[in-house]
């Protein structure tokens, strides 16, 4: 269009080619990009400054940490950047993975502390185990009854979950809490680790070793943890959720032998911090007095800024995410599977599918506050659920992220090469068997990446929570999904209406930094998964 319009008045006709104009345009464009980025990053630096208050520390404290942490880190970064990019990648993951795993361990800790007790979890697991045994037995005895088995697979677990947990919980003798956790949490994770290693290496021996090491590491907590000052419960979480992935990663780096020097980076950081602490203690320098500290993360909101904490909203956010994970994710992935694998291209149903696709695209653009109104009308006024509960919050925000989940899962499924499906059909597999055994395992990393990013979106949504009536302040962490709850952004909004400077520039900044760090770590996890499993062809 543009090319056949302006034949008479082409640019250089009455003026010389201008180098200055080109340079100026390029600089202008670069400037606009940087302006957008810098504007926000400078503001975020202010927030970080308010949250951590580094300038309230002794100058000696700052200097010693600069010497032990900042300088070595800068030197290492320079080395990786200029000499050894491969090791630089290893260094990023080696530092990021433990931190992300610690966040996950925190989430699991909150789950076991407030949402399902260890015994409830054990009883659920036992009932599922019994259900699996019944299904397996049915499979053996009546191998031909496909439909009957379908009913058994759906019905038996539901029935058992309804009755068995109560029976187990009412047993007179229960194992101690640590033993129950070892059996119900560490053992399944050890088995999963063993299965994963066995599949990766195609070696039974390696799988058995991995499983055994995990169990022994977790069980060691029963004896070692009190000595170090941790509860056996925390020890087990740390070993299973943080220790296992980090161990697997370190081992894989050594096995591949590429970028091994990157593993030194987290050691450098950790060692530097330790040395800094030792030096400042020895010399008697006082550290900064940050708003964001352990007390902030573990105490309840308060009228006085010094005591104000973030713990109940943290628990609320975890509960909301749990509701989303079990409600929106299965539905979204199911819809994506239908649209990519099953949907007909033409005919009446084909037109319905077109309508669904267009509709999903538009739902992604509906303002979040409208979803809040939908949740209020659908779940509270018609559904009769209590206003401002974690259940309603999770459902409402689940609806909000549903289009995002569907679109990203569709992309992941679309990326599975068609030749794999054809090979599966060629072996005589049905459509569902192909989907379940070929397409889904192949698309899983992509689906997980998209879902984690969607969770990041969900965790920061505020407006729907205001509309469904999440209370301004929750002082005690909610004990069940039907209690009133508050989430991190809801609490931040409450604090933003405080006029006190200590709230505005202190507590509020600490809350915002916490939220952003959680988000950043979730995005980091998504990026690590994406890079690890990205198709290299």
């Amino acid at each position: 269009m543009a090319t056949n319009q302006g034949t008479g008045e082409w640019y250089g006709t009455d003026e010389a080619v201008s180098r200055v104009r080109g340079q100026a345009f390029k600089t202008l464009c670069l400037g606009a990009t940087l302006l957008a980025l810098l504007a926000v990053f400078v503001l975020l630096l202010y927030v970080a400054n308010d949250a951590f208050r580094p300038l309230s520390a002794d100058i000696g404290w700052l200097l010693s940490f600069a010497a032990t942490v900042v300088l070595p880190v800068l030197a290492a970064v320079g080395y990786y950047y200029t000499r050894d990019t491969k090791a630089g990648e290893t260094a990023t993951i080696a530092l990021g993975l433990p931190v992300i795993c610690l966040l996950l361990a925190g989430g699991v800790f909150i789950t076991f502390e407030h949402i399902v007790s260890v015994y409830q979890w054990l009883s659920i697991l036992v009932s599922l185990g019994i259900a699996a045994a019944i299904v397996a037995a049915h499979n053996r005895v009546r191998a031909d009854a496909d439909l009957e088995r379908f009913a058994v697979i759906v019905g038996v677990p539901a029935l058992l979950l309804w009755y068995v947990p109560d029976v187990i919980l009412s047993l007179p003798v229960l194992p101690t809490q640590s033993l129950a956790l070892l059996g119900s949490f560490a053992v399944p994770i050890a088995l999963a680790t063993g299965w994963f290693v066995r599949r990766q290496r195609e070696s039974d021996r390696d799988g058995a070793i991995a499983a055994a090491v995990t169990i022994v590491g977790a069980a060691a907590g029963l004896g070692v943890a009190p000595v170090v000052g941790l509860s056996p419960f925390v020890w087990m979480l740390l070993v299973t959720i943080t220790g296992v992935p980090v161990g697997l990663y370190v081992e894989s780096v050594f096995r591949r032998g590429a970028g091994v020097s990157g593993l030194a980076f987290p050691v450098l950081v950790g060692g530097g911090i330790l040395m800094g602490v030792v030096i400042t203690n020895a010399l008697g320098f006082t550290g900064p007095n940050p708003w964001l500290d352990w007390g902030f993360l573990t105490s309840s909101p308060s009228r006085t800024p010094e005591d104000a904490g973030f713990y109940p909203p943290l628990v609320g956010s975890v509960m909301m995410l749990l509701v989303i994970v079990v409600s929106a994710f299965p539905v979204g992935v199911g819809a994506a599977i239908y649209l990519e694998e099953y949907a007909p291209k033409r005919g009446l149903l084909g037109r319905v599918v077109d309508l669904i696709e267009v509709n999903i695209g538009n739902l992604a653009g509906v303002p979040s506050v409208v979803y809040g109104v939908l949740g209020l009308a659908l779940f509270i006024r018609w559904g009769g659920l209590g206003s401002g509960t974690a259940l309603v919050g999770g459902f409402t925000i689940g609806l909000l992220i549903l289009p995002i989940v569907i679109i990203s899962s569709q992309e992941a499924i679309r990326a599975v090469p068609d030749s794999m499906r054809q090979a599966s059909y060629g072996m005589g597999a049905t459509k569902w068997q192909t989907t379940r055994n070929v397409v889904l395992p192949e698309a899983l990393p992509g689906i997980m990446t998209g879902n984690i990013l969607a969770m990041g979106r969900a965790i920061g949504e505020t407006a729907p929570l205001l509309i469904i009536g999440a209370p301004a302040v929750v002082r005690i962490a909610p004990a069940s999904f039907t209690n009133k709850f508050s989430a991190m952004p809801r609490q931040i909004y409450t604090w933003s209406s405080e006029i006190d400077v200590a709230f505005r520039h202190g507590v509020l900044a600490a809350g915002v930094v916490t939220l952003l760090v959680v988000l950043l770590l979730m995005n980091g996890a998504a990026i690590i998964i994406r890079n690890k499993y990205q198709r290299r062809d």
Partner: protein
Amino acid sequence: MSERSIDVDLTRTSSGQVVKERIYKWLLFGCAALTVFVTASIIVTLAADALTFFSMVSPVEFFTGTEWFVRGDGGTYGVWPLVTATLIITVVSAIVSVPTGVAAAVYLSEYASDRMRSVLKPALEVLAGIPTVVYGYLALVYLTPALQWVGIPVSTFNLLSASIMVGIMIIPMVSSLSEDAMSSVPDSLRQAGYGMGATKYEVSTGIVIPAAVSGIFSSFILALSRAIGETMIVVMAAGLRPRMFNFANPLDNLLSSGQPMTAGMVNAVTSDATGGSATYLSMFALGLTLFTITFAMNLASDYVAARYQEEYQ
């Protein structure tokens, strides 16, 4: 699965299998159809309660009134103060985001080296992932005092700082969508331009931007629909006092507080938690107006992108 299928009896009837396949298919179809149910229920719930609201307050008063004043039990419901505040937010945020976003897109698509792009693009993605409540906080606690420090006489809550922040928030959206449109312009067009002796600047402004103009415009529409529906930034930084557009002194509207439609909804639901009053129901009327506007804009964006797209083989 694979171990078991070795001794499977191939002669057995497969009717159970067929029914099972069908059940799975319709189960998955149900998941996909749920999204239509979501849209339908948004429309039904909003319309039902909006109708109740209009039985209490006449639509004429609602759509022509110039005063919005709500209490827990009643008030005056003229939607124009909220609409004008929303318009101000949209216009100012467009002034901030459209030139910046397009310039950033031109840089990323035409000028940036691979290394530069690999840094800038993720950084813009991070920007897009920051929750709006954080942007609202930045506007309220840092941007407004900064504006006052520069010498602009803004009040504590004001539309200017809110709309600048909304503009900054939608920059990544404009830039990434526009960049997609520019990257999909085929390279042969650029090469033809260079072959005619055009400079990089002339190729960018004379060939790439005109060729990608449908995608760029559809990104504007999407971004502005996002600005209209933005809630937390305006609730936190623009204040909750509805104020009719002051024609005598247009600049004054920017410097003082105002209440856009989204903020009006939040205010309505928080001022009457029990439900049932006209104030509470006004939220649904506002929601319906908002949903209609944004939905129409999203459809328009799709239409512009599809209708005016240049086809290249």
